[in-house]
């Protein structure tokens, strides 16, 4: 799933940081979406309660997935859909190829689906000489430009109007103005033809309702509706974790997802599709094929550190608050999923830790993602767990392992630490000036952007005895002391009873 093997987030992000337009575009988009979410959630109110509800519904479903996924498949079949279980991309591709061949399809219209990116379905179709047409405006644009999406919700934020006009003008065979209305109007006309001709419509799925066998798709443009109404055959891909029990539970998701993704009360279209067309219907697909994908998801189940990862509703809120994503954009992550969710999901779905590269390290662990997540996934914790597993696998960089062996040695005994600091104090005499070290040595990652303060001549430890004596003679506001003593005793009492303030809060 890491599309640019051999490179790394570190290398790609260095390039991204030099692209001024990209940085401004990413910042502008994420600010807009972040503010939209803030406004929408404040207006709606009681956001924390909604988050907790969403979390509980997702936790419950995953904890009983053998029941709900089974129920979904059975009900979807009763409604007339054909349901397949694909363990990995290879199986999904076999199924897809066969359906495409059977229908003698010449073109397929696709609406947005991150899962199909995991499977590289477009590539598969192209190899079969079948046109795979992305119909989501942003996806269509980047498809024509031969680029991967850079944001889970707004895939083409890295392109400006000029660039988009150039790309579309080539298809139009005439020069199109870099005007949003003109460009969107062209895409509407062009894709309309495709929708009406295509033999197969491919969609993703936001949620799958177990009790009815329905799939639910959220969108703003209408292209997913087109893909699921006009072509005679529909193929819908979904990760096995997309399940929720009922339409009642959907109400919670419909409250959390649009607000978190774009600050909307509800997307322009939310479609609940149950089976293919009824015999007497005038439109809708004659056949509905649902391909349920595992691809590493089931491995998260039963793993206490990562099971919650399956709660994700793919809203992108974590991308919009991530201070790292803000600067480097989606392509730097080099995989299907970017931002905080991508930094966790990409390695988690890959069993072999030696393949993980550095994506889980592209984070300062600030926790903003966890704060923003509508279903409270502790992504910041999961990043640390991934790092720990990488270390356990023995495939972390050797130089780094050596550094931390050194850390272990020095820090496991205070006397060693004191000796180490003494050495440092002596060593730095060569490079420290006016209290700071500017030289670029092994810590040049730091000193490229900052000065390093020198180790103080007298450490806190060194000074401790003197300080204690000085402080004992310091004047105190006596009247306060008794109150304070009482307060501290109270805290101790409450603590021994098992209640009260627990260190910190």
């Amino acid at each position, binding site marked *: 799933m890491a599309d640019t093997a051999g490179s790394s987030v*570190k290398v790609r*992000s260095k390039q991204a*940081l030099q692209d001024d337009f990209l940085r401004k575009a990413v910042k502008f988009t994420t600010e807009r979406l972040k503010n939209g979410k803030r406004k929408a959630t404040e207006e709606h109110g009681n956001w924390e309660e909604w988050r907790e509800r969403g979390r509980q519904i997702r936790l419950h479903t995953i904890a009983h997935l053998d029941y709900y996924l089974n129920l979904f498949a059975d009900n979807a079949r009763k409604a007339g859909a054909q349901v397949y279980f694909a363990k990995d991309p290879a199986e999904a591709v076999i199924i897809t190829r066969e359906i495409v061949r059977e229908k003698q399809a010449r073109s397929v219209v696709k609406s947005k689906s991150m899962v199909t990116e995991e499977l590289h379905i477009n590539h598969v179709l192209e190899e079969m000489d079948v046109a795979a047409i992305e119909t989501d405006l942003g996806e269509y644009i980047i498809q024509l430009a031969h680029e991967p999406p850079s944001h889970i919700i707004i895939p083409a934020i890295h392109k400006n109007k000029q660039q988009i006009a150039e790309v579309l003008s080539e298809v139009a065979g005439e020069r199109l103005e870099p005007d949003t209305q003109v460009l969107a109007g062209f895409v509407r006309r062009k894709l309309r033809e495709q929708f009406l001709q295509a033999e197969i419509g491919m969609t993703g799925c936001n949620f799958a309702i177990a009790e009815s066998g329905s799939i639910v798709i959220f969108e703003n443009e209408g292209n997913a509706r087109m893909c699921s109404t006009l072509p005679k055959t529909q193929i819908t891909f979904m990760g096995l974790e997309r399940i929720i029990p009922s339409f009642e539970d959907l109400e919670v998701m419909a409250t959390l997802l649009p607000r978190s993704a774009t600050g909307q009360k509800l997307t322009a279209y939310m479609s609940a599709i149950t089976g293919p067309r009824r015999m007497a219907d005038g439109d809708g697909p004659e056949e509905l094929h649902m391909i349920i994908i595992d691809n590493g998801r089931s491995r998260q189940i039963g793993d206490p550190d990562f099971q919650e990862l399956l709660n994700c509703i793919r809203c992108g809120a974590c991308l919009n608050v991530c*201070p790292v994503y803000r*600067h*480097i954009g989606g392509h730097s992550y080099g995989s299907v999923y970017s931002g905080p969710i991508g930094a966790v999901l990409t390695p988690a779905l890959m069993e072999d830790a030696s393949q993980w590269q550095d994506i889980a*390290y592209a984070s*300062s*662990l*600030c*926790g*903003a993602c966890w*704060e923003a997540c509508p279903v409270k996934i502790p992504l*910041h*914790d999961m990043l*640390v767990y*991934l*790092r*720990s597993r*990488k*270390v356990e696998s023995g495939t972390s960089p050797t130089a780094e*392992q050596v550094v*931390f062996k050194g*850390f*272990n040695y020095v*820090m*496991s*005994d*205070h006397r060693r*630490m004191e000796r180490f600091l003494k050495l440092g104090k002596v060593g730095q005499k060569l490079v420290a000036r006016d209290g700071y070290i*500017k030289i670029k040595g092994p810590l*040049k*990652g*730091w000193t*490229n*952007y*900052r*000065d*390093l*303060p020198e*180790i*103080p001549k007298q*450490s*806190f430890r060194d000074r*401790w005895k003197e300080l204690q004596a000085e*402080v004992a003679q*310091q004047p*105190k*506001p006596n009247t*306060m002391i008794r109150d*304070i*003593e009482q307060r*501290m005793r109270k805290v*101790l009492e409450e*603590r021994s009873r098992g209640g009260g*303030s*627990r*260190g*910190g*809060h």
Partner: protein
Amino acid sequence: MYPRVGEAMVRILARYGVQLDFPKVQTCCGQPAFNSGYWDDARASARTLLEAFDDSDFVVSPSGSCTGMIHHYYPKLFEDDPVMLDKALRLKEKTYEFSQFLVNVLGVEDVGATFPHKVTYHPSCHGTRLLGIKDEPMKLLQHVKGLELVPLPDAELCCGFGGTFAVKMSDISGAMVSEKVHNVESTGAEVLVGIDMGCLMNISGNIHAEGKPIRVMHLAELLNEGVSS
């Protein structure tokens, strides 16, 4: 690494009759190793803290992130060792970040300080998100006489320290600290105050390298200076 900060904290708390002890057995909370995934090495360091504070009633730290490490991650770090886990849970119960201790335990919001300068506050990620420190530093700052507190734009954005992240992903970290410093400058503040030395070292390192005339202080330092002058 920053003796002034430790000293300031000791002096402030001493004014309220709180005699702090410094058990020298402690080395480091182990966060750098933990965050990088080297949990065995983190445990080696963290054990010195469990040992050092075994008998203490209260443990006060001038570092939001170290306190966060103890609260949020020590139980996980020692989950397979029942003896150490017990010590870790007890340590968690009694460890406070400096401003939390002052405001929530001692009940002090006005230390009687005077600091007639324009100041802006950077809320450290681990402090605000892991420990829930939102009001305490503000309460303390608001009571300082003469202090003009100006809000920091996009304050909740991480400064880019993240421990080894600053070295490992230095270009990204550099971009983040530049934005933070730009935001600090835009307030016109003379002083940037915070509750975590990691953040402050990161931000001041950049400010110093750029030669900008902004003073970076830990909250304890600011309060201590405010009562000493």
